[in-house]
Each structure stands twice: as structure tokens, then as C-alpha cells.
């Protein structure tokens, strides 16, 4: 297969995007058909490329070592395949869900553009090319969020753009430092020890990666977007594409570009970020009253596991992190899609209004349940496997605190999904919504496919672990370390798994306690925790966006701008407007006063001048 196929992998979705953009809004079905077919073709292409393994394409681009350099190898092929798969599912789903959206033309256009950029980012083998595609995704993200058509959509879109921009600019800085220190931009040629400037480069690039993945503190636009953006966007971007890309890059950073040692400062920083993300986000998720928002906080929380796993820098942890990435993409995508399905039929996602939909929407409920259990890490689903690997990895680093944090996360994850599932699909049928029925097949089908995948990846974890994950780590870890993680993947009988299961039981207990306390209303199940003394205040502050770095950052920017404007720019202008003019006026005024029209005065000057001239000349002659 010619290596130009790589170029076409990127160009094809872009061309499709343009075609879809050009199809007039009035023509029905054509757009959906093209989209589904094209994404199907891409999915097929993904398989094709995955079977190819190694391809590379280099051509001149900007000069100075900035080449148009694409490289397909195992890892990128895997991510590419996953991306194409999710694109296909989203297209399928959107065919019905977004059918009547007023800006449907743009929607598909942006979708495929985003796909194109993502493929580019995955295939890039030159940092500049990478950042080109990487940052370009910001625009599609921005545009897709505005398609939510809510009053606050644009605000959220700007938020995502600025946060993303900040992260990407950090990454540019990191790349720049890396380039300055190594002298090359080819991604497969760089491998440095993270010391000194390189450590700074590591952190900066890491910010770029985890920022894309949505780890704390760069997550705050995601919960907002959950309400303001189309739900299919949530399934598409924060749930799947961005996680895949962000963790892909994080893995590349820690495995390829830098040699991250287990237990080193940088690794610990990464783990702290992971652990903090898990715990803080899950606490936020727990108390949410909106289905989509709850899911969005989980989308943040789960990133913590991936970051934590990769941060352990221990093969099993890394593998767990990467595996968790793909697992998370599947079940979170499924969860968002099922929330979309509920929204599609009922028009709302508020937990309070929903209830007992399982009978009317059985397939959605089924899909949701499987995915929810997977995310909670219930045996034998995929979430269980990857989380166990992360726990193992975290424990092996010798800092059990991180494992504990991860377990705390597991407790509340399950608790919140119990709450969500209980409120939406089970329990008594809500009276606030009219009778409804199951969504159309194109909506349900993707959910079910994802649910099935969750089960498959859990039960037959050998398949993903051996075909996808293991080759990534080959050659990247010290010799002799076992790379077969399947042995204890579904092992229930070890202390780690025991603790995990204990966590699930605690979660169950918490839920039912809260449910009872809340007058048997499932959506109030989290209230006991919400109302705990200190937590309550923290929750309130966080509702007021006190902890939102973006809000604080914006305030800082506004403050800084005012300072710059009032204390630097205006004073400079004052010099031109007032100081210069008034100095001129003063001198002129003084001189003008001297010219009072008196002849005697004038004559005096003349004579005085003469005397001075004579005196000077005589002085000079001496």
C-alpha cells in the first residue's frame, strides 16, 4: 500500500466535510447517507491501516526541519481505528438525532473536519504538524459547541477555546523548548531525559495533552458544554475523541519523547493530577441533578484514572491507563448517547423530571446499564479490568495514597451512577413527562454496539490487551518486565480486587441510605454527602465557579488588562495629548508675553543682543 494513503486518510474526511457543508439544507437523507457511508469507509480504512502497521510519508513543508511527516505505526493505527469507529457510531446516531437541527450542514461539516484533524494529529510525526492538527481541533470544538443553540452556548464555546488555547500554547512552548534543546522536530527521533529545561518541556507538553483529555484543572468547560452543546458532540468530543487524542499524546510523551522513571518527581506530579482529578471530579459528579452534566463530570473523573495509570510509569499502570482510555471512550460514549436518546424522546435530561423509563425505552436502559456498570468497574466488564490494572500500578509505585484516591473515586462513581440510573430508568414512572417510546434504531444501535463492546473487552480482555496495548509498550520498558497483563485481568481473588469490590458495596450502601433519607427519591440519593458540613460550603463555592480556573483566569486577565491600559497605555497617551502640548503652550506663552509690542522692549533686546555679540566676539578673540 502506497504511503500516500496516509495523506488521503486526512484529506478524505476533509473533502467529505466540504461536500456535506455544500449540500443545501433542504435536501434530506442524502447528507445522512453520505455521512454514514463515508464514516463507514473510514472505519474500514482504519482496519486496513491497522493491518499495515508501518507506513510513513515525508515531504517538504515549511523548511527548517518542519516537514509534512506522517507516520503510521502500531499505536497510531490503533488510535486511528478507534477514532474512525467512534466517528461511524456518532454519524449513525446523528442521522436521526440531529436530523432536524437548523444548522445541520455545519454540524456534519465540523464533525468530519474534526475527524480529519484528529487523524492528522494521530498520524503526525512532526511536532509542528502535530500541533497544527491538534490546535485546529479547537475550532471545530468551538463551532460544534455553538451548535447547541443555547443562549450561553457561545460563552461555553469561548471557554473551551480559551482553555484549549491555553493548553495548546503551553504545548507549543514545550515543543519549542524541546526543539531548542534537541534540534529536531521529528517525533520518532526524540528521546530525552527530563532534566532542567527538558523537565519544563515535559510539564508544558503534558499540560497540552491532559488539557485536551480534560483533566483538572482544564476541565471546566466540559460540564458547561454538557448543557450547552448538542449531546452527540459530548459523545463525540469530550467522551471519545479528546480522550483518545489526549491520552495518546500523554502516552507518547511519557513513553517516547521523555524517559519517565517510576517514582520520579514528574511521575508523581502526573499521579497527583490524576488522583486529584479522580476524586474532585467524582465528588462534583455525585451531586449533579442533570443527567448530562453528571456524565460530563465523570468524563473528567475518568481521565484521572488514565493519567494516574500513565503517571505510575510502570508497565501495568501504563497499560491500564491506555486500556482505560479506550474503555472509557466506549462506555462514556455509550452513556452520552443514551442520555441523548432519553433527551430525544422526553426533551429533558433533568433527573428530577425523569423516572421509570426502562419499560418504555428498554434498549436504551439496557445499553445505559451495561455502560454504567462498566464505568463503575463491575466485574467482568472492561472498566473493571482497566481499573484493576491502574490500582495495581499505583500500588506498585509505593505510594498507596494514589490507589486509595482511585478507590474513593470508584465508590462515588458507582454511587452516582446508581443515582442516575435509578432516577432515569428505574423507580416509579415520572408523571412529568408524557408517555413515550423507544428511540429509532440508528440511535439505539450505537448504544448497544458500545455496550456489547464493553462486555467483549471485559470478558475477552485478551483481545484488546494483546492486539492493541501490549505492542505499544514493547521496547519501551525495561527488559524482563512481563508484558502480559491478561493473567490477572479478571482475577477476583486478590486483595486489590477485593478492595474494589468492597468499594462497590459501600457505594451501594451509600446510595440506598441516601435514597431512603431523600424520601425514596433517587435523584436525592446524593444529598447526605452533599450536605456534609465542610463539603456543603465547598460545593456552594464550586457552584459559584469559585474553583473554576477559567473564571479566575478571566478575572485576572481583565484586571491585568485594566492595569496595563490605565497605568501604561493611558499615561503614554497622556504624554502626547497633554504633556507635550502643555509644555509647548507654556514655552510659547512665556515667549509671547515677552513680545508685548513695546518698542523700548524690542530695542532693549537689540542692544542687549549687540552687547552680547560684541562681548562673545571679544571673548572668542582672546
Amino acid at each position: 500500500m502506497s504511503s500516500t494513503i496516509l495523506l488521503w486518510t486526512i484529506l478524505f474526511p476533509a473533502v467529505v466535510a466540504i461536500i456535506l457543508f455544500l449540500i443545501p439544507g433542504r435536501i434530506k437523507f442524502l447528507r445522512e447517507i453520505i455521512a454514514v457511508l463515508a464514516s463507514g469507509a473510514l472505519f474500514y480504512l482504519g482496519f486496513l491501516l491497522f493491518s499495515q502497521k508501518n507506513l510513513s510519508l515525508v515531504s517538504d513543508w515549511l523548511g527548517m526541519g518542519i516537514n509534512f511527516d506522517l507516520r503510521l505505526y502500531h499505536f497510531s493505527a490503533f488510535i486511528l481505528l478507534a477514532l474512525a469507529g467512534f466517528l461511524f457510531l456518532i454519524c449513525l446516531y446523528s442521522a436521526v438525532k440531529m436530523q432536524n437541527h437548523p444548522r445541520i450542514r455545519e454540524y456534519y461539516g465540523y464533525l468530519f473536519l474534526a475527524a480529519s484533524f484528529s487523524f492528522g494529529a494521530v498520524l503526525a510525526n512532526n511536532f509542528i504538524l502535530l500541533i497544527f492538527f491538534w490546535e485546529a481541533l479547537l475550532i471545530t470544538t468551538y463551532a460544534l459547541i455553538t451548535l447547541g443553540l443555547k443562549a450561553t452556548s457561545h460563552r461555553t464555546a469561548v471557554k473551551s477555546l480559551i482553555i484549549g488555547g491555553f493548553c495548546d500554547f503551553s504545548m507549543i512552548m514545550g515543543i519549542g523548548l524541546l526543539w531548542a534543546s534537541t534540534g529536531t522536530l521529528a517525533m520518532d527521533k526524540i528521546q530525552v531525559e527530563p532534566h532542567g529545561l527538558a523537565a519544563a518541556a515535559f510539564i508544558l507538553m503534558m499540560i497540552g495533552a491532559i488539557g485536551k483529555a480534560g483533566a483538572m484543572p482544564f476541565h471546566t468547560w466540559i460540564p458547561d458544554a454538557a448543557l450547552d452543546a448538542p449531546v452527540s458532540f459530548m459523545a463525540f468530543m469530550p467522551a471519545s475523541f479528546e480522550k483518545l487524542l489526549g491520552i495518546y499524546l500523554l502516552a507518547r510523551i511519557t513513553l517516547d519523547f521523555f524517559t519517565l522513571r517510576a517514582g520520579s518527581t514528574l511521575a508523581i506530579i502526573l499521579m497527583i493530577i490524576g488522583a486529584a482529578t479522580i476524586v474532585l471530579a467524582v465528588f462534583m459528579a455525585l451531586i449533579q441533578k442533570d443527567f448530562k452534566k453528571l456524565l460530563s463530570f465523570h468524563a473528567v473523573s475518568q481521565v484521572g484514572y488514565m493519567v494516574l495509570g500513565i503517571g505510575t510509569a510502570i508497565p501495568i499502570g501504563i497499560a491500564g491507563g491506555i486500556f482505560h482510555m479506550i474503555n472509557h471512550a466506549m462506555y462514556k460514549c455509550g452513556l452520552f448517547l443514551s442520555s441523548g436518546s432519553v433527551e430525544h424522546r422526553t426533551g429533558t435530561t433533568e433527573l428530577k423530571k425523569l423516572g421509570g423509563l426502562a419499560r418504555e425505552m428498554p434498549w436504551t436502559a439496557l445499553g445505559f446499564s451495561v455502560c454504567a456498570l462498566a464505568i463503575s468497574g463491575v466485574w467482568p466488564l472492561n472498566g473493571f479490568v482497566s481499573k484493576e490494572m491502574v490500582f495495581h500500578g499505583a500500588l506498585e509505585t509505593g505510594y498507596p495514597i494514589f490507589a486509595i484516591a482511585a478507590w474513593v473515586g470508584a465508590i462515588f462513581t458507582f454511587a452516582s451512577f446508581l443515582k442516575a440510573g435509578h432516577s432515569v430508568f428505574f423507580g416509579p414512572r415520572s408523571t412529568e413527562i408524557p408517555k413515550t417510546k423507544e428511540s429509532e434504531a440508528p440511535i439505539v444501535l450505537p448504544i448497544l454496539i458500545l455496550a456489547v463492546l464493553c462486555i467483549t473487552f471485559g470478558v475477552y480482555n485478551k483481545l484488546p490487551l494483546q492486539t492493541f496495548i501490549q505492542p505499544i509498550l514493547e521496547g519501551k520498558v525495561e527488559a524482563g518486565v512481563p508484558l502480559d497483563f491478561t493473567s490477572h485481568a479478571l482475577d477476583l481473588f486478590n486483595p486489590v480486587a477485593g478492595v474494589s469490590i468492597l468499594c462497590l458495596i459501600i457505594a451501594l450502601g451509600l446510595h440506598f441510605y441516601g435514597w431512603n433519607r431523600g424520601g425514596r427519591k433517587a435523584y436525592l440519593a446524593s444529598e447526605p454527602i452533599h450536605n456534609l458540613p465542610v463539603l456543603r460550603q465547598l460545593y456552594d463555592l464550586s457552584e459559584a465557579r469559585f474553583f473554576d480556573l477559567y473564571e479566575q483566569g478571566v478575572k485576572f486577565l481583565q484586571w491585568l488588562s485594566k492595569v496595563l491600559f490605565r497605568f501604561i497605555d493611558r499615561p503614554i497617551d497622556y504624554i502626547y495629548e497633554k504633556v507635550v502640548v502643555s509644555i509647548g503652550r507654556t514655552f510659547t506663552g512665556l515667549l509671547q508675553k515677552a513680545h508685548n509690542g513695546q518698542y523700548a522692549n524690542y530695542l532693549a533686546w537689540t542692544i542687549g543682543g549687540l552687547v552680547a555679540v560684541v562681548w562673545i566676539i571679544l571673548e572668542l578673540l582672546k
Partner: protein
Amino acid sequence: MVFSFIVIPLLVAAFLPLIGKISKKLLPDVLTNAALAFLLFNSILLVKPIFTNGFIIQNLSWLGEKVNLQIALDGFSLFMLFTISLVSLCVSLFSIDYLEHYGHKANFYALFLVMIAAMNGLVLVPDLFSVYLFMEVAAVASYALVAFGLGSDELEASYKYLMLSVVASAFVLLSITVIFGLTGNLSFQAVAQGLQDLNARIVLGVCVAFFIMGFGLKAALIPFHAWLPDAHPSAPAPISAMLSGLLIKVSGIYALFRILYSVIGLSPALSRLLMALGIISVLVAALLALGQKDIKRMLAYSSISQVGYIVLGLALGTPLGIAGGLFHLFNHATAKGLLFLNSGSIQHITGTRNLDELGGLGKKVPITSGTNLVGALSIAGVPPLAGFWSKLIIIIALVQAKAFGYALVAILASILTLWYYLLIQRKAFFGQVREKWQQVREAPFWMSAANIILALICLLVGIFFTPVYKTWISPAAEALARGIHQVLMWGL
């Protein structure tokens, strides 16, 4: 041929009052302009002989007997003659329409021609006392011309002018007398020769000081400038143009530097003193101009400032400095002539010269506005107009002579210059038309024509500065740079 520069205007002037009885307007207009056009033509014809010979000496014989009527023409004088003829022709063209409401054109033209004859004479004579005499002739004519409007302001200004001018003349005369006493001669060549052999530095120094004061007053160098801001604005616009454009240069700068360079010889000490005077004038007058409300007063102060530049260049004494000073003299003559004529147009159009009352004329009187812009930018030294090149040359010369401080002040003053010219532009032309001036119409034909000619000169000299420089400036500068050798080789 050279003699015609003095005789023709004098003759015409003598007969004009009589002719004025016959024809009040047409004949005086035609005669004056024809005479001046002839002079201009004449001066252009003289370029070639000067180029080949370097100088021309002419003695007039009368009835076969050689009378002691001698004139000397070199590059410097020719340059001045050309400038005088050019600007005065434009001024007289302008006067055709402008003088309509003053009346008595014949008288006006007669005085005007006397003044020109005197200036031409001053430029041509190789004799100290004759210089003084012609200076006085020009001055007398100018006193009357300043007061030509007969308003009380005009008379007061003219009186002040006269009173200060007389002081200057007295000192010039005194100095000439002393030099005569020292050398026993008055012709440039003999005096130059005589002074070389003489060791009387102190006395000579005082003489030079008197010259500086006397001619400096004529040239309106600060602190001898006070008469100018009253006199120049009071005169009718064409006369303001003549005074600012030519008279201060001829009877001030030409006389001073001709004597200093060609007769006495410029010592470094003197050069420093004059440069200091020049730079003070540049700066102080620029600041003064900034505060003026009356267009012509502002222009008058601007003249002082620009004379400062000219003196700065000439006093520097390097060939480049002299060239720059002379070039600026020419450019200032044309541009300031233009601006004063232009102020006349404004007064003709609106009846006022007060900047605060004017506004937005640009749309109504495009020619006046456009030509004013050209003149202003030229004086301010904005390329590609002529004034830019001369200022550039002066500043280059200053930097080459390591006079960085002077260069810096000269540069900064040119910002001030632009500032006050922009004030004129803004308040008079470049803005919204005031209700009051909705009905105004463009100045009459000849006024506009004179403006356009001068504006074109400013522009074209800027664009084709090389030929102008080579034809006019460079021979003049060489003549001055040769110092006293220039007059010694005349062989009178």
C-alpha cells in the same frame, strides 16, 4: 545686460506714477510683470556665462567716458538674482488681482520695483558702502510698503520697523566707516586685501559684531527679530511675501555672509557664534509660531525660524553646509512667498486671517488649500518637497561637522514646524466647512495662478532636485566657499 537688473526696474518705477494717471490698472500690471519676466529670463540666460567663467565684471561707460560704475556677478549673486526675479514675478502676478481693493496700483508697483531694483543692486555691487546704500533704498521702499494699507496697525508696525531698522543701519554704517578708516577703501577686493595685511583683530571683531547686529536685524535673527512679527503681517500679502521671501534674505543674509565670507573671512569662532544665533532663532521662533492665531503672524515667526536654519547652514562653513543653507534660502523664498501670498488669498476670500474664525475651506477653495499644503510641507521639510532636501543637506552637514547637538535641535524644531503648519491646515482648511464660509469662492485667477506656480516650484524642485542643485546651488556655494579668494580673483 547685468546692469539691467538695476536700471530696468528703476526706470519703470520712475514712470509708473505718470503712467498710472493714464491707465489705472492694465498698463501698470503689464509693465511690471513684463519687466520682472524679462529679469527672470535674463537671470536664466546668465547661467551659462557664469558656469563657464565663474564671474562677470561689468563697467558701464557713459558717453564714451568710463564712469566708475562697476558690478560683479558670481554664482552667489546670480543665485540671489534668480531667486529675487522668480519670487517677485510671482508676487507681482499675484498683485494683479490682489491689489484691486487697495487701489493705487501704479504707486504700489513703483515702490515694489524700487525695492526689487535695490535688492538687485545690493546683490550686484562689489562695494561696502554701496551695499549699505542699496540696503537703505530697499528699506525705505519697504517702510512705505508695509504701511501701504494705512491702517493704524500697519503704521505702527511700519514705524517700529523703521525705528529698529534705523538702529541697524546706523551700526552697519558705523562698521563700514571703521573698516574704511582701517583700509582706506570700500570695494570688496581692496578691503579684503587690506584686512589681510592688517593686524587689528579687536577692532575688526567689533566691526563684525556690528555687522552681525545690523544685518542680523535685517535678517530677523533672534534677538534682533522683534520688528518682523509686526511688520510682515501688517503689509499687504504680496509685500509680506517679498519681505519674508526676499528682503530679509537679501539685505540680511546675503549682505552678512557676502561680507563675512568674501571680505572678512569666516573664522571658526564666528562660525560658532552665528550657529548659536541660528539655532536659537530656529527653536525660539518655532515655539513662538505655535501660539499664534493670525496666519500671517505665524508665518512671520516661521520666517525667523527658517532664517535660523539658513544661518545655521551658512555659518557652518563647510561646503555642504553652505550649499544646504543656500538651498534652504531658495526653498524658503519660494515656499514662504507662496504661503504669504496664500494668506492673502485667504484674506481675500474670507476677509479674515484669524485661524479661530476660519475652518474647512479645503473643500471650498481647493487651489488655495492645496497650494498652502505644498508650501507648508515644503517648509516643514516633508519629502518629497523641496524643503526636505535643503534641511536634509543642512543636517547632514551638521552631523558631518560633528555638531550633533545642533543637528538634534534642528530635527526637533522641524517637528515643531510641522506642528504649527498643521495648525494652519487644521484650523483653516482641513476640517468641516463652517456655516459662515459656505458661500466662499476660489481666489481670482492671477492669485491662484501665482500660488500654483510657486507650489509647482516647491514640488518640482523637490522631485528634480539634482539639476536644480547642480545649476543654481552648487556654483553659488562654491563661490562662497572660496572665501575671500572669490573677490580677490575678480581683479577689480
